[in-house]
């Protein structure tokens, strides 16, 4: 069960649980659209479009209810290159985390870019959605982005 060293008892332990999260109308609508292969954002009272659809305006705290369709292509605003994925990462090969501002959106969204190698990544590059083979109404329905 444990190490034989009597002064140091250690044991591995997994804190594991599948959380069931209710989405509410805004996130629920975004994920429903995503399942259909469409991406929507919400528009704030001063006209900014937040993607993924945000429930509340970060500036005014107002509830957001107006949905706006945006493109599935956009531009990388910043990125980090994960040369060695950790166990939790969904892509088990070198990839980028990136903020991607989709055409029609004012605020970039966080996702992954599968570009093969770091040299293929640059800020300002255009990327487009690679849809998951099976879409279930989750942010992972976008498998990742890829260079456009």
């Amino acid at each position, binding site marked *: 069960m444990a190490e034989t060293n009597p002064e140091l008892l250690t044991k591995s332990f997994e804190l594991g*649980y599948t959380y069931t*999260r209710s989405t509410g109308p805004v996130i629920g609508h975004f994920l*429903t659209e995503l399942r259909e292969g469409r991406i929507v954002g919400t528009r704030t009272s001063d006209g900014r479009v937040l993607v993924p659809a945000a429930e509340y305006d970060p500036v005014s705290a107002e509830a957001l209810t107006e949905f706006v369709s945006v493109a599935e292509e956009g531009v990388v605003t910043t990125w980090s290159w994960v040369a060695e994925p950790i166990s939790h990462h969904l892509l088990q090969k070198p990839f980028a985390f990136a903020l991607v501002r989709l055409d029609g959106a004012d605020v970039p969204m966080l996702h992954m870019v599968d570009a093969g190698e770091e040299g293929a990544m640059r800020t300002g590059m255009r990327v487009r959605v690679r849809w998951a083979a099976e879409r279930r109404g*989750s942010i992972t329905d976008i498998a990742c982005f890829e260079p456009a």
Partner: protein
Amino acid sequence: MSDTPAPVTGIEVPINLQYEFTAGKALTRFLTRIREGRIVGQRCPGCNNVYVPPRGMCAACGIPTEEEVEVVDEGIVESFTVVHIPIPGNPIKPPFVAANILLDGTDMACLHRVSEVDNARVHVGMRVKARWKPREEWDYTFENIAWFRPVEGS
């Protein structure tokens, strides 16, 4: 469209984190002794109370407890409950008795099972003695004591 799937109202998010848990110095010493079939607690130099299992400190006095005190595997039931529902992560089949047992020579009860007696006959003040598991099953756990049983004539 009649075949439109229902809107998304929820998601499932599995979260699994791995930890390498360490027992702590005081507990390590306790578990090392219990593996040898000995119950060794600690005495607080402030209030002189003996703690089993020890925590390396007295929460009343806020000072380290270093003096080790070996105690016997016999004591009294300070209070108890009969657990009627299955407890997640605990294979013991209900109903079973979980009791605060004050071992002789100690000053704070420890929570353990009482068995080998009709649950209805367990009472506050009952004298009990440890029923150890077979020696070959002993490990770094208080469960080397399978449960406490009534002492004859109690």
